[in-house]
């Protein structure tokens, strides 16, 4: 967790540096503007001089406006989790086999997007569907500021198409839920050992040298919340336990974050969605080759999404979120 602290300090510092540098630039321009204004005033009757000075002033003023905008955005309250790595979890929703297949399609898209950003994805848990895809799948995603982008994918995704398993060509609607959980550690989430009930193939028996069962699956129940995590990925029981605890911490942290986030967005009267995990954020329609984002109120070509070119959609969400924060900020300061 020392490396977490270091990462946080370095990112805080580079953010502060950016603000300071931009502000210094702004001050420099201000001085230039004063110089140009003086020139304008001293120009007197010299029309050419006056014109030159005036166009220079205009140019500088435009640049200053831009910088003002940039500084304001830099000073906007930042999501404290933006720099973090994430656990990406996709669960098939309604729709049976087709939902599982759709979950598989989504994970394919995200894998491409992750690798195109130079991030690294590791599968840490999966329950494959019988006809393909997944009932549930979890990836560990590491890289630069992963959460700041991936968080906009969280919510319910809906697909309307003729399933591969459908013999009569009817269109079905299925769903899959995407959860994006920022990485966390014991500093973020305290878990009381008494609240955990762990069971394995060894539990209840004599254990130790007496038993040689190699089933290493670990089943963890967090009693206060009822969250149950099963981990079978690793060959060592201890590692499965560690992994299960990591996933549990991520889920608990995510719940806290979601609550806080939803309160904040409700206060803002946000249009950028409630941020709730059960919020329907997108519909993918195969017949119309269209992907609709309900928060943006915009459509995108389905092929764009399937090619994992989701950067523009995410950027649009970020821009809209910033707009809202700006508006909220100016309303607050206006009312002071």
């Amino acid at each position, binding site marked *: 967790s020392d490396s977490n602290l270091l990462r946080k300090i370095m990112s805080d510092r580079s953010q502060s540096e950016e603000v300071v540098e931009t502000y210094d630039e702004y001050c420099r321009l201000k001085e230039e503007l004063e110089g140009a204004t003086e020139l304008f005033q001293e120009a007197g009757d010299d029309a050419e001089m006056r014109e030159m000075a005036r166009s220079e002033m205009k140019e500088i003023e435009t640049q200053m406006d831009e910088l003002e905008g940039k500084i304001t955005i830099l000073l906007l309250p930042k999501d404290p989790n933006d720099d973090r790595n994430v656990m990406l979890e996709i669960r098939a929703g309604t729709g049976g086999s087709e939902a599982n297949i759709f979950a598989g399609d989504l994970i394919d898209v995200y894998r491409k997007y992750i690798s195109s950003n130079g991030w690294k994805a590791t599968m840490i848990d999966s329950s494959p569907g019988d006809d393909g895809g997944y009932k549930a799948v979890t990836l560990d995603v590491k890289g630069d500021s992963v959460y700041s982008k991936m968080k906009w994918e969280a919510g319910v995704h809906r697909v309307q198409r003729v399933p591969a398993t459908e013999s009569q060509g009817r269109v079905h609607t299925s769903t899959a839920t995407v959860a994006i959980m920022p990485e966390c550690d014991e500093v973020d989430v305290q878990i009381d050992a008494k609240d955990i009930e*762990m069971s*394995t193939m*060894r*539990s209840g028996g*004599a*254990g*130790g*040298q*007496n*038993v*040689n069962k*190699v089933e*290493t699956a670990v089943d963890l129940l967090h009693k206060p919340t009822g969250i149950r995590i099963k981990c079978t990925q690793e*060959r*060592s*029981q*201890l590692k499965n*336990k560690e992994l299960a605890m990591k996933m549990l911490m991520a889920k608990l942290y995510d719940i806290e974050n979601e609550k806080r986030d939803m309160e904040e967005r409700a206060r803002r009267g946000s249009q950028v969605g409630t941020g709730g995990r059960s919020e329907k954020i997108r519909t993918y329609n195969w017949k119309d080759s269209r992907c609709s984002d309900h928060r943006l109120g915009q459509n995108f070509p389905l092929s764009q999404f399937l090619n994992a070119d989701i950067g523009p959609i995410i950027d649009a969400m970020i821009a809209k979120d910033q707009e809202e924060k700006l508006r909220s900020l100016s309303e607050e300061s206006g009312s002071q």
Partner: protein
Amino acid sequence: QEPIQYILGKWDFLDFTLAIQAPLLCPRPETEELVHVVAKNVLKDEGGVVPDNHNNKKIRMLDIGCGTGAIGIGLATLVGPQAQVVAIDVEPLAVETSMTNAIAILGHEEVMIKQQYQALLCSAKDFTISSLSSSSLLAQEDDTNDTHTTQLLFDVVVSNPPYIPRSDMDTLTDDVVQYESDKALCGGLDGMDVIRDIVHKLPSICKMGGYCWMEVDPTHPSLLKEWLDRDFTTLGVSYVQGYQDMFGKDRFVQLQVL
């Protein structure tokens, strides 16, 4: 019914894979926990057992009843290059297998040249520091005033000795008793035969203040505490504490040489 570890001839332990064959004991998950607990303690320098390593002092560890080498090798991987492990077992196959595993996992040079791991055919009862001198084991090369023997004393002794009480042996399932050696499982009537041998041996093989960690039967921690609380002055060994394993059983004990 043959244990899958024997069929495959190998199985994972911590972050590595161990070669294994009958009748050696297949490492259990509890033993992984033991290694973690010991390594954490060694690295945290608790109780001043392990000196600060800026003078590159070796941390000498003894694995009693090494079997496949799981514990000793596991400690070497977690503690690092300053770990120096001696491992003993009464089963020749264990000596052979643990050396093979050590070379594969720690490296040929680390084992054969830097002597990071060495296995000897010896029982707990018969083991002495002199058995080390005669096998020309390097301890430290720096010039201290200590005699050679003192240099060979161990900082840490770890063991997963046979600890099942004789009466419990009947309750074991076939996949255990029919394949894994009785000698690796049964610790006599109360299961404490080898454990007692180890306790008696500790003052002569361990540095003062050195710790001994053992995986035991859940009936043992209270028996050990009772025994050592009563006789620590004559035995020269005290009971520090017991630890539970992840299944909530009293599984591990920590003793200290006075």
